[in-house]
């Protein structure tokens, strides 16, 4: 176990913990956008900046920095607060239409940005380039259907050549994990349309009720995990009804 202090308060955390996890364990709030406990640290949004004053003085992104014995962490000293505030102010200037960013900034007392507004072609920008979608698709799903394209301000996320992706399994994890709702996905009939990725996948039909409930490309999971064959056979609702029926029949034959 590692002992450290966060804003003067002692905390003990397991070895291998990040400073951010220690800060949260101490009950101190820190905003994050690119951090997710299920994915490897990324260190891109720079919202979780804190100052460590021991064993050496440094301004660090807490999400990617490992704790050390005797470490002293300060989240509210001006150096750390300024770094966070400027990051929020710049993200607000990038995505003035994002409710999430506006609320996050307002929480730190920032309601306007001195750094201008996005150009007209990006006026409705919601993507903060946190990379969660790219990473969940690669690290958790294993599909790697999307990645970053371009450098600097031209950087954005997309499929190769911005056309229908063969690698996308339509799972929707990208849209689910996106903190700002930048990824547009909808189900229409037997189609799932991932508008942002120019990609459409077929949905599997429930043989009982005819409803569409899972993207067809995910059928590869049946080979990987034979035990889910049953999950594939019926939609969740029909499975529930079947289970209820079985329970009633069971009760009828052997009452309590």
């Amino acid at each position, binding site marked *: 176990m590692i002992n450290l202090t966060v804003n003067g308060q002692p905390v003990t955390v397991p070895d291998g913990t990040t400073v951010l996890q220690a800060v949260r364990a101490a009950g101190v709030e820190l905003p994050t956008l690119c951090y997710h406990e299920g994915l490897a640290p990324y260190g891109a949004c720079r919202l979780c900046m804190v100052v460590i004053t021991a064993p050496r003085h440094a301004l660090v992104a807490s999400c990617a920095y490992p704790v050390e014995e005797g470490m002293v962490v300060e989240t509210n000293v001006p150096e750390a607060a300024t770094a966070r505030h400027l990051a929020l102010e710049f993200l607000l200037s990038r995505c003035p239409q994002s409710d999430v960013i506006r609320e996050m900034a307002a929480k730190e007392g920032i309601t306007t940005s001195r750094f201008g507004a996005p150009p007209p072609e990006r006026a409705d920008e919601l993507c903060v380039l946190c990379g969660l979608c790219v990473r969940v698709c690669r690290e958790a799903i294993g599909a790697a259907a999307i990645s*970053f394209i371009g*450098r600097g*301000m031209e950087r954005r996320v997309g499929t190769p050549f911005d056309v229908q992706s063969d690698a996308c399994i339509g799972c929707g994890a990208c849209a689910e994990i996106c903190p700002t709702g930048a990824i547009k996905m909808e189900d229409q009939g037997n189609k799932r349309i991932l508008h942002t990725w120019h990609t459409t996948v077929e949905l599997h039909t429930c043989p009982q009720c005819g409803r569409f409930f899972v993207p067809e490309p995910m059928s590869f999971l049946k080979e990987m995990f034979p035990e889910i064959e049953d999950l594939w056979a019926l939609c969740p609702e029909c499975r529930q009804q079947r289970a209820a029926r079985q329970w009633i029949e069971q009760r009828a034959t052997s009452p309590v």
Partner: protein
Amino acid sequence: MKVHSRSDLETLRADGLSTLYPSRLKISVGMATCGLATGAAAVYDALRDEAAARGLDLMLIATGCLGYCQQEPLVDVRMPGRDRVLYARMTADRARELIADLARGELPAEGALAVIPEEKEPPAGLEPAGGLPLLNELPFYARQRKIILRNCGLIDPTRVEEYVARGGYQALAHVLLDLTPQETIDEVLGSGLRGRGGAGFPTGRKWQICHDAPGQPKYVICNGDEGDPGAYMDRTVLESDPYSVIEGLTIAGYAIGARQGYIYVRDEYPLAVERVTQAVARAEELGLLGDSIFDSGFDFSITIVRGAGAFVCGEETALISSIEGGLGEPRPRPPFPATSGLWGKPTVINNVKTLATVPVIISEGADWYAAIGTENNAGTVVFSLVGKVANTGLVEVPLGLTLRDMIEGIGGGGLNGKAVKAVQTGGPSGGCLPARLFDLPISYETLTQAGSIMGSGGMVVMDEDTCMVDVARYFLGFTMAESCGKCTPCREGTRYMHEILTRIVEGKGTPEDLDLLEEVARWVKTASLCGLGQTAPNPVLSTLRYFRDEYEAHVVEKRCPAGVCRALIRLVIQPDLCTGCGLCKRECPAGAISGEKKKPHVIDPELCTRCRMCYDVCPVGAIEIVK
């Protein structure tokens, strides 16, 4: 043949000496990229064809770069029994005349720059003659000390034999046959060598950490992703002396326990890629790479990876990601590559120049190297000295030399006698230091304290005609375009700083902009993820620190003191000086100049784009820049 022992090296050495110092006429043409750019290929062809036409027995060699860019194409003539003479600014026509003279047994005086002294195998009894200075006595070379560039321009870079003849591969033989990996590390540690890629981390310590780190296999990578505008040190070494890098990389591999090395070289350096590919193949053929080198049981191979043109890939974690086939973008450190690098394994990454130094340290000893330079800043560094300076070129000096020695001594002062105002060191992420700081000794720490960096070794000299705001904007434009865009400060911050600077040079800046600029610059410097963002604001912060008056002139008086910023200047023809030659009228791309022949011309300020073409072409200096 295969090299198994030191005596096999002797065989190679004898072969190398026979072509380095042949008993017949030998001409070497500097044909690294810099020489080719000034027309060395045409010179080479002219020499070859004319010699053939005259039946002159000639050994013609394409060599690398001697570093004196100003004087390219350089031709080195070695006639047995005579002084070895270096000719400068050679042309194809003069090359043909040279052959004619040589055919008559004469060494012409025209274009002769210096006599090249032959250090290792001098044909006895030669006196420098003809009033020519020795090459190492020219002001440009006098203060230089060539360790990294020891062979550049002096050997045929395609012949390992010549590299061996000048002492090459003795160090590898010594390391593999006489030293343990730990002893090898101790030697480098004791030399005080620090990373020549710019950050200056002690090389021996990096090796030690990687050597001690758990995990197998380990890797060693040569970083040749040099991308700074105006810098070409690594390119020159790879083009002119590729075996020095390969030998250094092999020694590094042995020291840390790696069997696989990589040379990451940017694809925009086609000649460097070609030379290094050829050299690796030749080293494999000779058994200097491959299984059990020198029958020592140590196996080592090298793979060449070509970079796809992203500046950020010079950053070590981005470079690793690029080799792995991923996106060229950095990741947070720690963990550092020495413990978790390529494929998550312990990895050493060293710059081209660092690795080229290693064999010399092994051969000459740690103490010998540590005695060069200053305490904590041992050895030599290579700078590409460019910009508004009389002598431009690739310069290798001991650390501790002052900026003044560099600029006024080696560089010969400002171009056309103009006063030098500032120097920018360390590439696009370096800072601009004013002339009053020129007595600073060059070291990693002094440059950092003054607000610049050693960087990979760019050195751009600026004079009174350089606008410091415009310079800051130029460099920021580069880092903005090369930012990978991963972290918020570097992506959004460089974009916004560039926006402010653009406002200022367009005369739309306000005094408040300067404070905002400084605030954002400090944030980008401290909060960015990698070295690119952390150093990108240096040109802005250093010019704000030393040249704030120029910024104020732009935002308060709407005036550009250097007369560079287009929106803030006017071009006017002085009627009493104008001869009406019409040259400016012909050259003006905007058609803004009118006037009758032999009568004073005028510029229409509405049409004029302030491109300064007229200013540059006017033979009598009649164009005035109104600031």
